[in-house]
């Protein structure tokens, strides 16, 4: 046994020495994949120098690029038009205001079809309000510690009130990217109103003032003072002059902070479990997700002949402008193919349905949000939708 061990040690030493030689040889002979580098990148990785026209395996042009300058100076108006972002301290927030009550009405017509009543979420779209905001003695939102393992089924809820760090993000998110099917269509006042409504649904207050009051008015000054419950729930700290150093230090210790493996080669043990000792076992797929699109297929054969083939212009327009809401029954709009739903719609008569399609109705903006559609195109789309929804 002792002999064997000694033998192993000798082999180990030989290996260690040969790998040292290999490394030395590598830098001398430029072995592919072995590049000069230094540690300390902000993301925890290495930094490769660009020197003498060589950057890792790549060569680069060493001729001077000084004076290479294209494009033109941006005008003040152009910058004003595009520079509309806002930061947590309120920098960049526009003037304007909106009440919780106005937000409630807007939310009902513009947002509830996806995000559910009162921000409660629905059918796969993000939940905006709800969840338990209670904190432990260290100021951590308790339910965010939920882990769905070992039979536990309560998920951590990531709503504005339980998870988001800052409220200014809510304003820019809604203004820039919402409503989902026709983003950037709301005025700043409307965005303040919807922001106020969502913050109110989360039971939040600003400067000691409850927001859950129809008369509450949200504006720039109040929004920048809103402190969300989970403001301190994120790390590393990216605020202040030491932000970069905090990030660098965090990613430098990846084993501790994000998890890392070990290069064990023989008789490796991987204890785990709730007690730290339970041996690992083979976990199999319990319920395989096979519902994929296109379906799984691997044959090297000719594709099946497609029938008909040509799609009408109306159907193409429908796909582009209307299908998002009318393609499912989750959006509150009558689903194409649902004969019952369309029978109810057509009781109003085709003329009235057409007017609604052109002018908008309820949660639907005029022409489904696509102002480029002509009235004639809109008519052909409506006819396509009606014809596709007739009983067979």
């Amino acid at each position, binding site marked *: 046994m002792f002999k064997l061990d000694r033998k192993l040690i000798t082999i180990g030493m030989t290996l260690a020495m040969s790998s040292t030689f290999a490394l030395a040889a590598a830098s001398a002979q430029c072995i592919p994949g072995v590049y000069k580098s230094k540690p300390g990148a902000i993301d*925890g*990785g290495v930094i490769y120098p660009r020197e003498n026209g060589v950057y890792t395996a790549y060569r680069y042009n060493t001729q001077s690029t000084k004076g290479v300058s294209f494009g033109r100076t941006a005008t003040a108006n152009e910058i004003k038009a595009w520079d509309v972002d806002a930061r947590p301290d309120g920098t960049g927030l526009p003037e304007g205001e909106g009440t919780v009550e106005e937000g409630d009405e807007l939310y009902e017509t513009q947002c509830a079809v996806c995000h559910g009543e009162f921000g409660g979420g629905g*059918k796969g779209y993000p939940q905006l309000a709800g969840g338990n905001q209670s904190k*432990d003695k260290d100021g951590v939102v308790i339910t*965010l510690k939920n882990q769905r393992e070992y039979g536990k089924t309560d998920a951590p809820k990531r709503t504005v009130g339980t998870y988001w760090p800052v409220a200014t993000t809510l304003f820019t998110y809604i203004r820039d990217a919402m409503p989902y099917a026709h983003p950037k269509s709301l005025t700043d006042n409307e965005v303040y109103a919807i922001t106020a409504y969502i913050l109110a649904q989360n039971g939040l207050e600003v400067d000691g003032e409850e927001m859950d009051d129809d008369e509450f008015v949200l504006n720039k000054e109040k929004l920048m003072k809103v402190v969300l419950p989970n403001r301190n729930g994120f790390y*590393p700290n990216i605020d202040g002059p030491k932000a970069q150093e905090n990030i660098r230090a965090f990613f430098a210790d990846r084993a501790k902070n994000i998890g890392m493996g070990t*290069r064990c080669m023989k008789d490796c043990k991987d204890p785990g479990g709730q007690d730290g000792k339970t041996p*690992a076992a083979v976990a199999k797929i319990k319920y395989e997700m096979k519902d994929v699109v296109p379906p799984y297929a691997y044959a090297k054969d000719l594709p099946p002949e497609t029938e008909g083939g040509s799609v009408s212009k109306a159907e193409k327009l429908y796909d582009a402008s209307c299908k998002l809401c009318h393609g499912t029954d989750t*959006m509150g709009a009558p689903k194409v193919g649902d004969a019952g739903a369309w029978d109810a719609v057509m009781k109003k008569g085709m003329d009235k349905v057409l007017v609604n399609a052109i002018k908008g109705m309820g949660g639907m903006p005029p022409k489904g949000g696509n102002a480029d559609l002509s009235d004639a195109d809109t008519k052909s789309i409506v006819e396509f939708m009606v014809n596709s929804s007739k009983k067979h």
Partner: protein
Amino acid sequence: MNREQEEKLTSASRRDFFKKTVSVSAVAATGLVVPSTVLADDENIMHHVKWGTTLGDECNKNPYGVPSKYEHNVVRRTSALMSSAGDMHAAISMTPIAELEGIIVPNGLHFTRTHNGVAHVDPTKWRLMIHGLVEKPIVLTLDQLKRYPSESRILFLECPSNSAAEWKGPQFGTAQFVKGMMSCSEWTGVRLKTILDELGLKPEAKWMLAEGGDGSEMSRTLPVEKVLDDVMIVYAQNGEALRDEQGYPVRLMAPGWEANLCVKWLKRLEFGDKPWYAKEETSKYTALTASGKAIQHFYALETNSIITSPAPEKDWTDLKKGDLVEIEGLAWSGYGTVKGVDISFDGGKNYVEAQLKGLVLPKCWTRFSYMYKYEGKPLLLQSRSYDDSGDIQPTVNQEKKVVGVEGVYHRNAIVTWAITEKGEVSNVQIRS
């Protein structure tokens, strides 16, 4: 001869063929290499084939070429679970990684993540604004951007949600869905530092906001240090213009970092002294850990690997005992360059070293290979990569011990394929 008779005959001769193959394999094994008179003759050799006896298509029938019709099943796929909304406009499609070769993904198969659908940008109306804490704020057209000297890099792009469905246990039954939220391409564009050198970045500029022009107005904050190191503004992918799905005409490229940070349909870069807390770096793309707090500004994708042959969709059911077969896979790291890959056959108790092959580049897919003598025994096959920054791919237990199972993002735990005696492959996890 009618069709039915023909089919009977063909299948009979096929059966014959296999029977005879088996009976002579013993002879073949002794090293006999003279032409066999015992084996059935292959019809595809004995007779002229259709494509050899007819005139093919005109040479430029397809001015923009398309794959062989026989490859129609090699496609991106998605599923309802790959949606971050209730529909497929904010969703992800997966690259068929087990069916690809080398390290370059064809542009039509590059995985796609959108937050408000695939935008179609008119390149003549596209503008890029660079402003904020710079001496000279500018606006560029696409032609002007392309006037800057270009660089090309072969880089992987990975969504930080890759494998997010697998935190609580194995869920998908194919390599495409286990790790297909990634691709690798040669990207061409301008090194951002080249442009900034002329614009005069102010010393108080610590952060850069990158903003997209699609309906989601995707925006993210990056530290200037990274921007000046290796960030690029790219307009070409594998030699041609970016595909719409990849941000045509221009996207940001932050090598090794979350694909989400490589903002598509790029519109604006602003330099500032404080971070922005944009929507996709607060409500999403932050990794909630078991402590109840979340990791923010999670940049580089960790060292990672997956065996792509065998894989559930590319199994070993055609192998005979004693066949010498290549185990092949992909390794990558956003921290640097893959240094090596270890292979385990027993679910991680023991490992042997695989070999790297082909190009070994930083922040790029790297192929690994191991020659294995197939014995028809059940196996728990794994790969474990490590890189030149010191990062080593963790086991499922090692990773969840530190971050828990609810983080969604940055999952790089070792993947295990269970192989049966028949050579069938399935996705399992070694965990407790």
